[in-house]
């Protein structure tokens, strides 16, 4: 069960939790990435996410396939939000259920770390006095 979604409506941790549930599960790790209210002490008003959709989905699927291959984590949901997000809203959820907890922790950490490196999604931070595309410049 690999479930990959890119959505412009609020994400649900409960939905992801249920998607990966199976009778053989001994542990479920759910990572929830939320919009923080500041960056380096500067107040963030909101975030805007945009994606190159077909490739974002195929790159997220690749991550899930690797998790399945490497940790036998074949129950994985990766949901990412696009559009305008307010402080506290959920930007990403990664849920992994496995027979033993260690594989779920490792696969989940691999998935979020790799997502941040390879998936073509961009985040713009909107401050009170300007805006910046995150990570664009060295």
């Amino acid at each position: 069960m690999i479930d990959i979604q890119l959505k412009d409506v609020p994400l649900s941790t409960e939905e992801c939790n249920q998607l990966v549930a199976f009778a053989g599960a001994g542990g479920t790790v759910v990572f929830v990435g939320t919009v923080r209210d500041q960056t380096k002490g500067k107040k963030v008003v909101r975030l805007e996410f945009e994606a190159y959709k077909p490739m974002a989905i195929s790159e997220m699927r690749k991550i899930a396939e690797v998790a399945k291959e490497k940790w036998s984590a074949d129950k994985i949901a990766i949901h990412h939000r696009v559009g305008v997000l307010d402080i506290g809203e959920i930007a990403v959820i990664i849920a992994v259920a496995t027979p033993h907890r260690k594989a779920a922790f490792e696969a989940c950490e691999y998935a979020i770390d790799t997502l941040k490196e390879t998936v073509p999604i961009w985040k713009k931070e909107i401050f009170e006095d300007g805006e910046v595309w995150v990570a664009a410049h060295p």
Partner: protein
Amino acid sequence: MNAFGKYLIIANYYFYEMDIEILAFGIAKDIVNGSSFTMQLPAESTVGSLKAQLCATYPDFERLASFAIAVNEAYRQDDYTISDKDEVVIIPPVSGG
């Protein structure tokens, strides 16, 4: 075909230029001032030569931490050859999650 005809065909092949539709996301959109634009490239251009031409046309690309090119929905190395029917996308540093 005589020798002259063959020469013409070869010449045509080497000097043919193709119009490539390029999509831009994130900061790349700000740099090129739009979400898509057309660039004329010599036939058999590679991802590497496209990147060089982008930097020459829009010097702001050189100020980015990095940028990649996707062709037909996958990252491609500099030696990958671009064809005129390809979907070419500029991928500035990603920041999802």
